[in-house]
């Protein structure tokens, strides 16, 4: 006898099931149509091509569940069990559909035994295990990132549990009632059957089987109909969102055409791109973004999760025609129904653009560009932004550096060093341009780093030059706060300068300059080979041009700057420099590399007083000091300022120094 089973055993009036299914699918389609009309309100974005590359990448990322397994592993395992369990059950339903409705008899023989019986039976159990873990995580362990719990969250878990367990009840009863000869292939179902058979008569089992079957079918169809109306929609939107992910270098903001743009930034929801709107419906409310957000962790009025959910709620509340007229304070041409009424200004001004949220998001939602888009509206259309940042902007406008009141000049740090300053010697020959950066030139502590780096480069025999007075701010702080206009002015001036001196290779001592020069200047026609000083120094050590001695100091830890690590993936070079020459290695803080916590200096925060909540730099300093290190290695001037201050506040009696990796190397290469 060929192994198989009767699909509609013990069931009559099967057409009723099809009728309910049709109704469920109609509700399902209606829901998606409503969502689709809302996404369509958005502006164009090129996020569909190239199809093949996107598809392969998305399939790999979705099926491996990689982001979920990277951090919070236990819960990643839950999702993987659940994802695979549900996936296999869906395949099994498809097999039934092909077998019964398309009349292609595939549900038989070995395939029936191995896949439709054994594998499905086991994966169903995996899914139950997964759902129980999820229950425990939410209601026993009470994971913070999942708060607040909603009624839907509970209902969803419960419904899924009901679907899975009733499935086993039906399977078990069928096995008992049909005296199924292949029960060895359905261990979980058989156990369920045996349990029920011990308590019930055959007649009762028949009745229970029929009732449970219809109940199960009804709940499943209800579940399907519910998908587009709840976060269950992520079953479809999340993989699609991963397909639509940004393929450009990380953290590159989209330029505005200042001459042609009709509006600057986003003041109404429909001014986001369709992909921005699609992001909102991809959110699974997992909260990974929130618990890694330096602003949220220091009780500032920003949670990346709440930001996305507030936008989503607002999108769902509006008709597909677009935003209702603004109810709020700002009237006239700059009135916004979105910025202020839906997303508060102080929320937008709490973001350091550190990208931790985007790094953690398993479905690749893009929070930071949305925040910058809304900042653009505030800064450029309304000219409303924090006073400290206004002072910074005025300084950038007047003197091309963001430090109002700076006493130093751009060349003060050079005193006593023999350097090639292109502003003074325009014809001098050089191989690499050392991009100092405003913080490196004007901030007292960072001047020491700049000097150390210049000395190390000289020791290695590098033919380098600096721009001296000709260097301007790259425009990074202007761009991150949303002042695209000023960014483009500064960038164009710098590109003209770099091109005038025929610069090909740039070594930047600041990750913010580095990122902007490397990844954003090409947007405006500036194309250079750009390295961060950690990369360049590491190359010099590898080539033997620098031979560092062993470290004599105690344990060292390293803090990953956001714009070096998360933005540009440079994690190893600075660590290798700290380890070069031997000695105490690098003691990793608990949060490191892509998970590193922001020092609180990015996105304009270096120029702003932290007015609300606790201090971000102290939060990070605590993590770094917990390693027991005596030296904190940094690779960014903003991190230097923030962490030196943070370490001083929390280190107490302990003497911990904050050193740039260039300073560490300078000390180890003194002859």
């Amino acid at each position: 006898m060929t192994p198989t089973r009767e699909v509609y055993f013990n069931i009559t009036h099967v057409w009723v099931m099809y009728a309910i299914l049709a109704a469920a699918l109609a509700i399902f389609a209606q829901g998606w149509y409503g969502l689709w009309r809302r996404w369509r309100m958005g502006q164009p974005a090129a996020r569909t091509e190239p199809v093949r590359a996107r598809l392969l990448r998305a399939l790999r990322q979705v099926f491996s569940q990689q982001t979920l397994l990277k951090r919070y592993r236990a819960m990643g395992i839950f999702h993987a069990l659940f994802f695979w369990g549900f996936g296999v059950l869906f395949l099994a339903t498809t097999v039934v559909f092909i077998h019964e409705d398309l009349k292609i008899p595939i549900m038989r023989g070995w395939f029936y035994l191995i896949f439709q019986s054994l594998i499905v039976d086991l994966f169903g159990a995996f899914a139950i295990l997964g759902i129980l873990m999820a229950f425990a995580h939410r209601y026993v362990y009470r994971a913070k990132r999942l708060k607040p719990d909603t009624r839907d969250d509970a209902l969803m878990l419960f419904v899924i549990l009901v679907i899975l367990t009733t499935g086993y009840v039906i399977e078990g009863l069928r096995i008992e009632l049909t005296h199924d000869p292949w029960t060895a292939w359905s261990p979980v179902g058989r156990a369920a059957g045996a349990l029920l058979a011990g308590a019930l008569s055959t007649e009762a089992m028949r009745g229970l089987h029929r009732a449970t079957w219809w109940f199960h079918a009804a709940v499943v169809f209800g579940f399907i109909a519910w998908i587009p109306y709840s976060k269950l929609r992520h079953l479809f939107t999340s993989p699609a969102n991963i397909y639509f992910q940004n393929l450009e270098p990380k953290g590159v903001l989209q330029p505005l055409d200042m001459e042609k743009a009709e509006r600057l930034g986003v003041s109404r929801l429909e001014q986001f791109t369709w992909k921005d709107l699609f992001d909102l419906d991809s959110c699974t409310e997992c909260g990974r973004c929130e618990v890694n957000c330096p602003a949220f962790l220091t009780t500032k009025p920003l949670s990346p999760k709440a930001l996305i959910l507030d936008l989503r709620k607002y999108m769902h509340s509006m008709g597909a025609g677009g935003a209702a007229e603004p109810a709020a304070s700002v009237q006239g041409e700059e009135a916004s129904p979105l910025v202020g009424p839906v997303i508060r200004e102080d929320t937008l001004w709490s973001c350091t653009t550190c990208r931790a949220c985007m790094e953690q998001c398993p479905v690749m939602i893009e929070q930071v560009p949305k925040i910058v888009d809304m900042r653009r509206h505030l800064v450029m259309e309304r000219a409303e932004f924090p006073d400290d940042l206004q002072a910074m902007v005025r300084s950038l406008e007047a003197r091309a550096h963001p430090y109002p009141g700076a006493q130093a000049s751009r060349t003060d740090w050079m005193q006593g060093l023999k350097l090639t300053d292109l502003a003074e010697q325009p014809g001098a020959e050089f191989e690499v341009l050392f991009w100092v950066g405003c913080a490196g030139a004007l901030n007292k502590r960072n001047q020491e780093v700049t000097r150390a780096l210049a000395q190390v480069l000289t020791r290695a025999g590098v033919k380098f030059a600096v721009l001296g007075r000709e260097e301007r701010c790259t425009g990074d702080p202007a761009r991150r706060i949303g002042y695209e206009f000023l960014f483009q002015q500064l960038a164009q001036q710098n590109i003209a300068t770099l091109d005038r001196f025929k610069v090909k290779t740039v070594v930047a001592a600041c990750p913010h300059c580095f990122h902007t020069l490397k990844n954003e200047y090409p947007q405006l026609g500036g194309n250079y080979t750009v390295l961060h000083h950690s990369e360049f120094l590491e190359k010099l050590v590898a080539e033997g041009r620098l031979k560092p001695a062993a470290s004599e100091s105690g344990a060292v830890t390293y803090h990953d700057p956001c714009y070096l690590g998360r933005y540009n993936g440079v994690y190893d070079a600075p660590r290798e420099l700290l380890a070069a020459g031997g000695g105490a290695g690098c003691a990793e803080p608990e949060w490191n590399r892509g998970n590193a916590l922001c020092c609180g200096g990015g996105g304009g925060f270096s120029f702003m007083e932290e007015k609300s909540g606790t201090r971000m730099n102290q939060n990070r300093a605590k993590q770094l000091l917990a390693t027991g290190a005596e030296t904190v290695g940094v690779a960014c001037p903003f991190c230097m300022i923030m962490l030196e201050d943070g370490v001083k506040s929390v280190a107490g009696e302990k003497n911990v120094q904050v050193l740039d990796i260039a300073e560490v190397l300078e000390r180890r290469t003194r002859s």
Partner: protein
Amino acid sequence: MHLVVCLKQILDPELPPGEFRVDAQKKEAVRGSASLVISVFDENALETALQLRDAAGQGKITALCVGPESAVDALRRALSLRVDEAIRIREEEFPALDGFGTARLLAAAVRKLEPADLVFCGREAGDWHGAMVGGLLAGELQRPFVSLVAGAQRAGEKYALRRQTDEGWETVECAAPAVVSVTNDDANQPRIPKVKDNMMAFRRQIPAWGAAELGVAAASLAGPNAALEFASLYVPKSERQCQVLGGENAEEKAAQMAKKLAEIQVL
């Protein structure tokens, strides 16, 4: 309501001290790498006028600047902050201007712009800190002068002007026309222009008035007719001395410190 705001373009006062140079021969500061900015109290004056117009809901503002060709940047900035008109007075036609000359030129321009209800200027320029032009301008125009104002409001037909005194603040009522000099306060920190206005400002033509338009002969302001003469100009030298004071413990050190401070007559 017509408000006139007088702006001066000066060398960036935030130029690092190490980069500041003067030309002792010409008796002027050397520009070097310094940027040119609007004198800070003049920015407060402009902001005060803008706030007055915002609150009144109507009114015209004209910005005036006595300056060389580069001064159009200062006037553009004013246009980007939505003043209605901006006019440059050709400084190049009036060499060696002093405060008296500047006041006469501004007065001539204001007469051309009549009716002008309030004329605003900063309490003093951020380069020479002469603090004369406002008062002299009021004298030239034969108008009341209210100094050290940080806020202005309409009060019926008159204006309520909040001004700084030695004891604090007082509000005076003043009928137009008048001249007002402005000091800085939290309330009149200059605003940032909207980008759209900034770009519009770049498309504006800025008229320039010279001796012919103003009816003021250059010779009447310069040479023997000038009221001020500069004797010399130099950068004062500042020297720092560092002494380490001895002492076994905190008390001894404090005693040493007190003695030293008394010695150099700080205490």
